[in-house]
């Protein structure tokens, strides 16, 4: 089983991202389960959503406590929630061989994640300017679908075409097309990072 936890803020489509992941995986013949952190969160509040992918039916109903991948849609969530707490809960439980995907225009080290990245296998962490890509291709700063393209590239779990199909199933017309373009750009961005990454 591969478990994904997505962190973002209300209005960023966090729950939708998890749902789209599950649809893309289902389309590829996998079993998938997506669910939100069940809050009554308003716009701007921290939101968490979960997705599980497996080759057999998924029975587990607990929240994802030890994710294989963490997607961070809003880098401000990485700041420690309390001074001196040493870090936010966004990365809690991330498996040693897990993946980390952050929506940011700066380097992960600049976000104070150098240590975290160093602990993960090479090529398992990526910074993607998803909001910028969304602005360019969609015209709105909604990073959720964009990051799924990056996720496909980073993990190799899903094809970018499945992700694109899931996006257009949810968003019709120009919004869907723009999101697909942005997701493909993010996919290419991560593939570019990987080709430049030092050999593990």
């Amino acid at each position, binding site marked *: 089983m591969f478990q994904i936890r997505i962190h973002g803020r209300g209005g960023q489509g966090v729950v939708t991202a*998890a*749902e789209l992941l*599950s*649809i893309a995986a*289902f*389309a590829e013949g996998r*079993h*998938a*389960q*997506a*669910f*939100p952190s*069940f809050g*009554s969160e308003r716009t701007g509040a921290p939101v968490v959503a979960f997705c599980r992918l497996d080759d057999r039916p*998924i*029975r*587990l*109903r*607990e*929240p994802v*406590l030890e994710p294989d991948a963490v997607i961070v849609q809003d880098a401000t969530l990485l700041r420690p929630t309390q001074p001196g707490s040493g870090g936010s809960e966004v990365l809690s439980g991330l498996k040693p061989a897990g993946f980390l995907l952050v929506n940011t225009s700066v380097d992960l080290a600049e976000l104070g994640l150098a240590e975290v990245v160093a602990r993960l296998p090479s090529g398992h962490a990526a910074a993607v300017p998803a909001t910028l890509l969304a602005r360019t291709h969609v015209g709105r700063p909604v990073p959720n679908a964009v990051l799924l393209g990056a996720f496909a590239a980073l993990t190799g779990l899903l094809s970018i075409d499945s992700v694109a199909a899931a996006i257009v199933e949810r968003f019709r017309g120009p919004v869907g097309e723009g999101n697909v373009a942005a997701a493909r750009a993010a996919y290419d961005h991560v593939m570019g990072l990987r080709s430049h990454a030092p050999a593990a």
Partner: protein
Amino acid sequence: MRQQLEGSQAVARTVARCRPEVVCAYPISPQTHIVEGLSELVASGALTPCEFVNVESEFAAMSVAIGASAAGARAYTATASQGLLFMAEALWNASGLGLPITMTVANRAIGAPINIWNDHSDAMSLRDCGWIQLYARDNQEAADLHILGFRLAEQLSIPVMVCMDGFVLTHAFEEVDVAEQGLVDAYLPPFRPRQVLDPAAPVTIGAMVGPEAFTEVRYLAHENHLRALEAIPRLAEEFAAVFGRACAGLISPYRSADAELVVVALGSVLGTVAEVIDDLRDNGVRVGALGITTFRPFPAAAVRDALRDGQRVVALERAFSPGGGGIVTQDLRAALSDRDCPISTVVAGLGGRAVTRPSLRRMLVEATAGSLQPLAFLDLDRELLGRVSGGRVSGGAA
């Protein structure tokens, strides 16, 4: 067709294929997506003929359903939590009048303190209102139990509640085979009411009954309820024949035959329980589970047959009775009164508290060792208790 979709949408689409003629809607989390889905299906013409009535309260929702059902229409509504309690009076009335309304309950805690998250306090508090209660373990079962529920309700003239865990199931995207229209039509015949408000043959429905006959009326209701225990397995069998997949009936045992300890539970927590059981079995711990799908009427004979002397039983409860204890436990004790099966109650997952594998595993290991208290609360935060109560707190924790 198998689809990856939200539980609420799976239920909405399945309910639509059951051709309800009157749907009453009032919003309450976490049920709202279901009636939203149905409103779209009615507005788009996908569900026709159907009157979609936006009402002013859950009390009105059930009341509109009562009127519609008494006038011969197949009636449906959905609710949760406070909404279910707000319609409590009308629930008793619907069952008393023998109106086969089918309703989804997206199980949620009851306030105060206000809490929108999942547990079973809502449906459990309406345990005795004369409705059949079916509990779904996943979204496939939630969808399928509605088809079976409509058929069962109309066959026995008893209303049916299909309970599905709020958020955990209603908001979960997973694959569901939404039943094809042709198959639903083959399984669920048109509604033929036992008595109906018809000007051509006027009847008085809802007369006053005094002490001379009230006991008899209630006795007959009980007898009719017990008929459901025979009807449900047959309907589940027929369901499997028509739809090509099993539908839960009264109970669903999981690796319980040779188990030393059996966890009895209702609803979606059974999925996580099954994972823990597999894990413990791999480590040589003989545990199993018994899912209760039909909670009212309580399938006492089936439960008795599924368990044997010497097995320890843990009732994993998503609600409890303050000052009393486990609610399902009471029924288990009655069913197993002549069995040598020690029963412990573990209250878990109240108000959306996640029921996790590590906690369940720890609790079950304790239970197999016989060191579990008779009434324990899973993951009880002692430190928080101290802060909340400002004093000493008694009671077991697991």
